[in-house]
């Protein structure tokens, strides 16, 4: 049922994945709870972006960490969500199977490359990258077979069985594949973006909650920034904490080797890199996944609270435009 939420408890969604580390660390260290006090924090772990989106629309969570794909979908479908901060950048790469003979983009021709699913952020990135290198996916009439995965972890078996030659995936899977010596990194997605910045995780709130409990959202934003600062200052410890929290919330901890590799692939920052969201939407449109890029897309960003927090700690403000 619909609700504007309450000011006594904030229901926060978080995906059990390392890319949501600011949330995981914020929860584990009690940073979010402390900043939110006296408002209580209720953590709702979820397994897929679409579940979190539905929960948001159904009013059963007030805020959530979530990837750019569902962020755009939610905005286009309902318009009733706002990004109040970024959380994670980077953390996606194209890895190719050892022995598949791929050492340059041109070698991808005729190969089978996996991604997390049609229309997914990495799918858009992969296809755009192929176009840029004069290639096309088979379903678009080209000769690279794009293999959408049911579960990203299936990439390991598929690579082992030589059923795929490469994969464009979010962490920790690229690290997992390389640390098993199954694959090597061909491309770090960060290298494709200006300043090496593209958003991986946003902090999203429902506009209903935002207008009813602006004060709580403000405290949430502060908590997020504090968590990110904690990570920035204690990178190694934070990685352990996030890893442990994965298990606490019902997921699984990663192997230490994989953890450190994956951790290095990501940047934790509050900047939601609005430009990358926009670029992503444009790429989606170019691929025909969406009909048009909403002209008001950037109005999804409500960064006043974030900038206020940043100012108060002497950090430069971030902008939604540009």
């Amino acid at each position, binding site marked *: 049922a619909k609700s504007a939420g309450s000011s006594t408890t904030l229901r926060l969604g978080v995906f059990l994945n390392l890319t949501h580390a600011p949330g995981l660390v914020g929860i584990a260290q009690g940073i979010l709870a402390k900043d939110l006090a006296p408002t209580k924090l209720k953590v709702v772990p979820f397994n897929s*972006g679409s579940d979190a989106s539905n929960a948001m*629309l159904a009013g059963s969570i007030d805020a959530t960490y979530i990837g750019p794909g569902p962020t755009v979908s939610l905005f286009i*479908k309902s318009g009733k969500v706002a990004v109040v901060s970024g959380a994670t950048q980077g953390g996606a790469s194209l890895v190719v199977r050892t022995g598949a003979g791929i050492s340059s983009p041109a070698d991808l021709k005729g190969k089978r490359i996996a991604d997390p699913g*049609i229309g997914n952020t990495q799918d858009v990135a992969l296809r755009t990258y192929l176009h840029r290198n004069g290639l096309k996916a088979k379903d678009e009439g080209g000769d690279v077979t794009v*293999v*959408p995965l049911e579960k990203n972890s299936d990439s390991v078996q*598929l690579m082992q069985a030589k059923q*795929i030659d490469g994969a464009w995936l979010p962490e920790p899977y690229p690290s997992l594949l390389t640390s098993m010596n199954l694959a090597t990194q061909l491309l770090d997605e960060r290298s494709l973006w200006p300043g090496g910045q593209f958003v991986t995780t946003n902090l999203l709130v429902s506009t209903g909650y935002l207008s009813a409990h602006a004060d709580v959202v403000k405290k949430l934003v502060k908590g997020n920034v504090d968590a990110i600062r904690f990570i920035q200052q204690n990178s190694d410890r934070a990685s352990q904490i996030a890893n442990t929290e994965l298990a606490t919330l019902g997921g699984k901890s990663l192997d230490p080797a994989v953890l450190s590799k994956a951790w290095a692939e990501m940047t934790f920052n509050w900047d939601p890199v609005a430009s990358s969201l926009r670029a992503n939407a444009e790429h989606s449109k170019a691929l025909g996944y969406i009909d048009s890029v909403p002209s008001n897309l950037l109005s999804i960003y409500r960064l006043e609270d974030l900038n206020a927090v940043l100012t108060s700690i002497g950090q430069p403000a971030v902008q939604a435009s540009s």
Partner: protein
Amino acid sequence: MWRARSAAKQVWPRLAAVLALVAVWQLVYQTGFFDHVVLPSPLQVWGSLRANVADGSIPRAAEASLIRLLIGFAVSVAAGTLAGLAMVASQFIERSFGSLIIGLQSLPSIAWLPLAILWFGLNETAVLFVVVIGSFPSVTLATVNSLRQVPPLLERAGRTLGAKGWRLYRTVIFPAAVPGYVGGLQQGWAFAWRSLMAGELIASGALGLGQLMNASRENLDTPEVLAVMVVIVAIGMIVDLAVFGAFDRRIRTRRGLAVAG
């Protein structure tokens, strides 16, 4: 004439039920209690259905799924029926592998996905494997249960007439079990459908209703999700009416059992 009238008698209550459901849905929609993105109106779903039928995506997906379903179900029926017969024929098989098969039945299809990929790779065979492994235990169980319902007198009559072994099963026990068996197959059919929907995620490139629904779901395109659901339910109802139902009615009329539906 009589056939037409009887067909109408079969069809209109079903239409009434569907209309009632749609009316309730429209009412709930109009209360505005649920966000319209997550609960679209019947009209929106109808629009999405029409669009998806018009551009061929639903017909193509439905065709692909149905072909998989038919192949997978046929294999399940063959394998399940044989396994069921073996279980009834031998108490040892029943107690050993039979019990194992029943244990397997509780495993969700997703548990089989990794194994399917491992054994068959990302292809049709893997999807079919998931369908078969998901529905043949149910067919086995249905076979066993229906065979066990056979009145002992009929079996004895068959044996004294000289039927034995496989022939006894084929000509006496199995025909006697048919009414229960058909009912059981309906369950197997449902298991096959559900497993197919999971199996189609293996290679989401595999065109099909399961894949379509999943893509729409990821895309938060609820009208499309519901449109696919409508198609699945409609196929289910049609198959129930035209295949299982019709077959069941025929058997029951011939044997003088209670007829309904």
